[in-house]
């Protein structure tokens, strides 16, 4: 059967007028090649190219000719459209039409680490060999829904897995035998960041794991193609074969869209990106992907804000999205980012035109919308000559409509698909609205017929007398029931008339009491003058089409509109500076910040351009550096394997995390965004500056030092999670994991350097970097035995552990750490939350410091990061350290541990202007930041914060009013949900969206 299908596709694609070779056993064989000519039509090829009074000629499934002067052959069936409109029918570019839902295999309770499939890729989420036909059965019901809103073709795919295989283009024809349905097989290769439901294989669990997996697939595909693999891999074979197809990537938010593009760029692939509808939030970054987009058509309903107590649970970001989402097409159009529109994700396609009209009200052009539904998707599939267009030789896929298809009043009469008519509404129905003089039995009445939706209402009057009526117009027969002139009578009269022409006289019969009948005539007077209140509505629309509430960066509470203003120098006068350098604390000095750097420290500094800030009685310090943080992350752990050196937290940065702003308010300017501690070899770090409002890429340090997370102890041996089946389950096993991986990495490096063919393995590349001291380890650790072990392993492979983080028993092996050269980044006073921190003491930092270890105090916590100054102060309390030493624990020392001390961590001329002005000594519990500045720009200040609070309140109340208005208008609303802000730490396994 499948072979036949393929053969048939071949046939219609290249030889459309070929002989029909299928046998016929039910009847005699008939010629099915019928020619139709549609004349007197407004043929809308595009809004710039409309043929008025044109003719469209089709034969079988093809358009033969179109234009103003088309020769109509004798055999053609003539259809006079009398000024109706013809549009190309729509192409649904991204769909899972007809694909059966997959069942998830049952779990045996333990995590599964290996793949289910044989002769396929090692990871079950890579399913390049899948084709939409594998799970396809034509869905009549859905097809009918889609036809009704104008779709003729649908590009459907098996929406399961990260690499999902190929999509097929299906005709939504009523004659749904498969021979007609399949238009083109393997139109595109589809990707997503969603795991396959057909497997329980654990890897990848995180966004960065999914990106790493994709990269490895590209690497492996090259290696496989070159014939280096010993085994057959049907997934990779399919993948390689499909690389020349359009590559479509489905994403769930704008961050994922940027992530998909980033992976594509690394391998020279430009994905067509299926967006989520929030891409307007970072339009510049979206544009710079150079990708074409497929945008969904699902604008959120307003929230039900009747209950003010509930309303406070609604985040500004959600309210703004409700308001701003319908502007997205307009914004894409203005930014000249190509886009198609998909109805994928729209619960009921019936709403489609209402939503499209909304987008047009908000400023999108009809042309852009039409393109997005027709020629654009065709172009994406490289089928622009055949589908989504009205031209000679293209498939006969078109719509006949009453008027402009995007007008409220438009009716789609017919949807022709592959030359087959699908009638949606009766096209021959007459418009009988108007005023008539109705006469019977010597009486004359004024009859007014008015269209109301698809039916009519009749008004019948004689002078001042008004009769009750009920009208029905069906198959061009008009029926009117009316009450008797004598109001006390309960009798009705019925009128019936066949009407042959619109807006002309007609006659019929009256059925009265006692089965009496007599004739009546109705003389057409005029078309009713419709009074409409469109004007008021138009004014309403006008109010709407400009965005009153601007996109801010980030587009949420405490975000700000983009400012082009140049950053002015800043001059602090008469301030106490805790330098963190040999100079110690300087009293009563001036500090000038210029061009992003600390320009000068001294007395009586002057700058005419600078913003001057009086520092009398205040303290200026370097911004706090947090060695261990998990804020600003979409996901923290790739827990699917015991090593995940291939993943990078740089892929998981989330610049829209309110924790960034709150941390700035606590004086933090730089963090190491670490992978979690789910596995012995974790993922690579992202080292960030907390530049609130800027993009994920712009938060990452330029020329960033390279780091990776390792972990030891209870988390990696899964003492409190996992199914007990993953190696290692003991500290003894942990050592062997490291020895095994580094031994393999040595062998890998040797092979790579030998010039022989090798499989590029990102995980091994990372481990080689570590051994060559190009990448540094920050290792989650608690008890002394394992700390000692890891140092020995490192020494065995010729490198050093850069930092032990947490390191709560560091004080027990501080001498060994100092000798090895490892630093320690620890909690000030956490302990007793699990068995391995039973001996954790708050004096740990002080002991390590005295033993010569470079010590930092870190947060690992979205709350503590807001007050790391207090945590540093605890080393004065518990360890008896000097204030200057303690302050270094959260500034220059973590900067040293992160190899960024040449740029940040102290107040020194030439360093980055990452500084904080405090109202009191920063180690005091009474201190709070007044300004937090990164590279000379004020990212937080008390004054600015006050303004943002006011802006926030104003925007909230404006949006709430709009929502109340929407509800009063009768629009649908949705119940309020409270978004969770989850604070991630080392052992967070959930992935955030």
């Amino acid at each position, binding site marked *: 059967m499948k072979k036949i299908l393929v053969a048939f596709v071949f046939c219609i694609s290249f030889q459309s007028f070929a002989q029909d070779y299928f046998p016929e056993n039910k009847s005699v064989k008939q010629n099915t090649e019928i020619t139709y000519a549609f004349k007197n039509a407004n043929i809308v090829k595009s809004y710039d190219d409309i043929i008025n009074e044109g003719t469209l000629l089709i034969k079988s499934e093809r358009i033969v000719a179109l234009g103003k002067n088309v020769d109509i052959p004798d055999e053609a069936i003539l259809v006079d459209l009398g000024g109706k409109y013809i549009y190309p029918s729509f192409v649904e570019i991204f769909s899972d039409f007809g694909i059966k839902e997959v069942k998830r295999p049952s779990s045996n309770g333990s995590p599964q680490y290996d793949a289910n499939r044989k002769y396929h890729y090692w990871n079950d989420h890579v399913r390049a060999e899948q084709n939409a036909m594998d799970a396809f059965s034509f869905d009549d019901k859905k097809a009918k829904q889609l036809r009704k809103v104008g779709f003729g073709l649908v590009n459907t795919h098996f929406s399961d897995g990260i690499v999902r295989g190929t999509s097929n283009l299906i005709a939504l024809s009523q004659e749904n035998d498969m021979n007609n349905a399949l238009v083109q097989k393997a139109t595109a290769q589809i990707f997503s960041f969603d795991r396959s439901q057909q497997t329980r294989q654990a890897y990848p669990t995180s966004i960065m794991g999914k990106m790493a997996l994709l990269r490895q697939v590209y690497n492996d595909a090259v290696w496989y193609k070159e014939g280096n693999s010993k085994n057959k891999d049907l997934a990779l074979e399919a993948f390689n074969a499909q690389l020349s197809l359009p590559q479509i990537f489905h994403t769930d938010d704008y961050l994922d869209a940027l992530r998909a593009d980033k992976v594509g760029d690394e391998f020279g692939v430009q994905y067509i990106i299926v967006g989520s509808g929030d891409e307007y939030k970072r339009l510049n970054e979206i544009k710079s992907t150079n990708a074409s987009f497929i945008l969904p058509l699902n604008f959120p309903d307003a929230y039900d804000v009747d209950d003010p*107590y*509930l309303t*406070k*649970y609604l*985040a*500004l*970001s959600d309210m703004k999205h409700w308001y701003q989402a319908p502007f997205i097409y307009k914004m894409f159009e203005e930014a000249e980012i190509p886009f198609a529109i998909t109805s994928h994700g729209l619960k009921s396609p019936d709403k489609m035109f209402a939503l499209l009209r909304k987008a047009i009200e908000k400023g999108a052009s009809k042309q852009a919308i039409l393109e997005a539904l027709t020629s654009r998707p065709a172009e994406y599939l490289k089928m622009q000559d055949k589908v989504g267009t009205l031209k000679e030789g293209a498939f006969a896929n078109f719509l006949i409509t009453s008027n402009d298809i995007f007008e409220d009043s438009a009716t789609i009469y017919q949807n022709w698909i592959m030359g087959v008519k699908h009638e949606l509404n009766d096209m021959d129905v007459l418009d009988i609205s108007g005023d008539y003089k109705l006469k019977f039995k010597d009486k004359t009445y004024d009859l007014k017929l008015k269209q109301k939706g698809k039916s009519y209402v009749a008004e019948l009057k004689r002078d001042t007398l008004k009769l009750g009526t009920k009208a029905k117009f069906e198959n061009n027969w008009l029926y009117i029931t009316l009450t008797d002139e004598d109001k006390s009578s309960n009798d009705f009269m019925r009128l019936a008339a066949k009407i042959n022409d619109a807006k002309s006289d007609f006659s019929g019969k009256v059925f009265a009491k006692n089965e009496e009948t007599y004739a009546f005539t109705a003389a057409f007077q005029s078309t009713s003058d419709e009074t409409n209140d469109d004007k008021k509505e138009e004014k309403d629309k006008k109010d709407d089409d400009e965005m009153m509430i601007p996109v801010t960066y980030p587009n949420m*509470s405490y975000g700000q509109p983009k400012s082009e203003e140049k950053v002015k120098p800043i001059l602090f006068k008469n301030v106490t500076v805790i330098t963190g350098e040999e100079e110690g604390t300087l009293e009563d000095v001036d500090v000038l910040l210029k061009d992003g750097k600390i320009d000068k420290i001294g007395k009586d500094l002057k700058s005419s351009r600078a913003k001057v800030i009086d520092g009398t009685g205040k303290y200026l310090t370097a911004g706090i550096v947090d060695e261990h943080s998990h804020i600003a992350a979409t996901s923290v752990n790739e827990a699917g394997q015991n090593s995940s050196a291939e993943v990078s937290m740089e892929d998981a940065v989330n610049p829209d995390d309110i924790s960034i*702003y*709150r941390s700035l*308010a606590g004086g933090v300017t730089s963090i190491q965004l670490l992978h979690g501690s789910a596995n012995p070899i974790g993922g690579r770090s992202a080292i960030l500056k907390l530049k609130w409002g800027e993009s994920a890429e712009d938060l990452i340090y330029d020329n960033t030092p390279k780091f990776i997370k390792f972990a030891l102890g*209870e988390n990696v041996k899964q003492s409190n999670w996992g199914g007990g089946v993953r190696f290692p389950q003991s500290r003894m096993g942990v050592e062997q994991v490291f020895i095994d991986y580094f031994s393999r990495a040595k062998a890998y490096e040797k092979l790579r350097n030998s010039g022989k063919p090798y499989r590029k393995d990102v995980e091994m590349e990372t481990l080689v970097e570590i051994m060559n001291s190009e990448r540094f380890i920050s290792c989650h650790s608690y008890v002394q035995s394992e700390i000692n072990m890891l140092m020995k392993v490192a020494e065995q492979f010729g490198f050093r552990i850069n930092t032990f983080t947490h390191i709560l028993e560091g*004080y027990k092996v*501080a*001498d060994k750490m100092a000798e090895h050269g490892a630093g320690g980044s620890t909690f000030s*006073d*956490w*302990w*007793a*939350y*699990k*068995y391995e921190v*039973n*001996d954790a*003491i*708050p*004096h740990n930092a002080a*002991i390590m410091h*005295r*033993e010569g270890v470079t010590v930092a105090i870190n947060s690992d916590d*979205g*709350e503590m990061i*807001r*007050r790391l100054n*207090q945590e540093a*102060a*605890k080393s*004065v*309390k*518990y360890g*008896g350290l000097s*204030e200057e030493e303690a302050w270094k624990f959260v500034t220059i020392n973590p900067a040293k541990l992160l190899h960024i001390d040449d740029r940040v961590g102290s107040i020194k001329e030439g360093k980055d202007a990452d500084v904080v002005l405090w109202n009191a*000594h920063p*180690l*005091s*519990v*009474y*201190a*709070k930041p007044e300004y937090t500045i990164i590279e000379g720009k004020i990212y937080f200040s008390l004054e600015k*914060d006050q303004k943002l609070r006011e802006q*926030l309140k104003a925007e*909230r109340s404006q949006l709430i009013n709009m929502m109340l208005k929407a509800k009063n208008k009768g629009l649908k609303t949705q*119940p309020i*949900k*409270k*978004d*969770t*802000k989850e*604070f991630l730490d080392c052992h967070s396994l959930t992935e955030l*969206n």
Partner: protein
Amino acid sequence: MKSIINSFIAILIVAFSAKAQQTPAPKQSQTISIVGATAHIGNGEIVENALVIFKDGKIQSVTSLDDTSMQPEGKVINAQGKHVYPGFIAPNSTLGLVEIDAVKASDDEDEIGNYLPHIRSIIAYNAESKIVESMRPNGVLIGQITPRGGRISGTSSIVQFDAWNWEDAILKEDDGLHINWPRNFSYSWREGSYSPNKKYKEQMDELSLFFKKAHAYHKSNSEKINTVFEAMKSVFDGDKKVFVHVNSEKGILDALAFKSNFNLNEFVIVGGEEAYKVASDLKSADVPVLLQRIHSNPQFEGDDYDLPYKLPKLLNDAGILVGLETSGQMERMNSRNLPFYAGTAVAYGLDKDEALKMITLNTAKILGIDSFTGSLEEGKDATLFISEGDALDMMGNQLTQAFIQGREISLESHQTELYKRYSNKYEHNIDD
């Protein structure tokens, strides 16, 4: 089997390591006079250059040295330049109920079931907990030990932190009933977000019905003993205070209605994150608040970043009686930071003396123990300590001596012992 052995081992280890507990101090045998310190009374007053005299576990007097009516007697402690404070009180605490979070065998804070007034925290309180002893070097000397979970989690008791066993530790037995008020929002794992709790009314009604039934039980002379309702008797008598754990504005208003429905005079709001929004209602109902941990993140994206920090001031300005509590993530080990919670509130606008009240006398009043503790006032327990500096600031909180009911307690702990052991190993020169 393996897991049984593991937990057994864990129990053994916990049991063994508990040996490191400091020995409780003997009864005060001689009068003690602290001379020259700044005495922070706990009621908002300060006596500079003070003379604090205590005898037989009770405070005799707190006077200024300038006032010569009192003279030092007994053992004299020279505390010139130092500060004396009443012992800090940690209400709504699970200290001594759990030793190590991740070791289930050491966890006794939550019983199964939903309505558990009869569940008493005091008998599970581990007076030898290493976590409890680590409170003392920071000045936290008293706690209200409170069970968790369920609608009515059980009955708390108030203890002091230097005792051989739970019985010795008791300051006030079975002091309060703890109700976890139904939430306005419930979490859906499938959706990954909160939506309005559809059962809110039903859950409130269930709670009311429970109270009604308990009330009816006490009015009837049924001979059948109902253990659960028996535990409610002291609630209706007014001997056991009702602590309602609730954060939302709406929830607090509903709780106040509940209070008046059942004539509950001894009524406390615990948590009270949004209490500042209904402050006038709380004030007119004369209901105090044990305010949630100051070191918290704001609940909503749009909240002021410093909202949790300034809540004490907002409530205090509105005339509400406020104490600070410490519950939340890692609550036991973090309870020693109670003074710094108060200090942070000062950084965000609260008066320093008011902040001190919120961890001493205010809390004692709210718990109903102010007649004998909570401030440095004549006749009260000599539960107090001497600090080198400002005890609300990490930089000043350095205890030299501490007393519970006049007994000079050890300020050592498992942690200080390890500090000393390893400092000695490395021959570091540390004070003490």
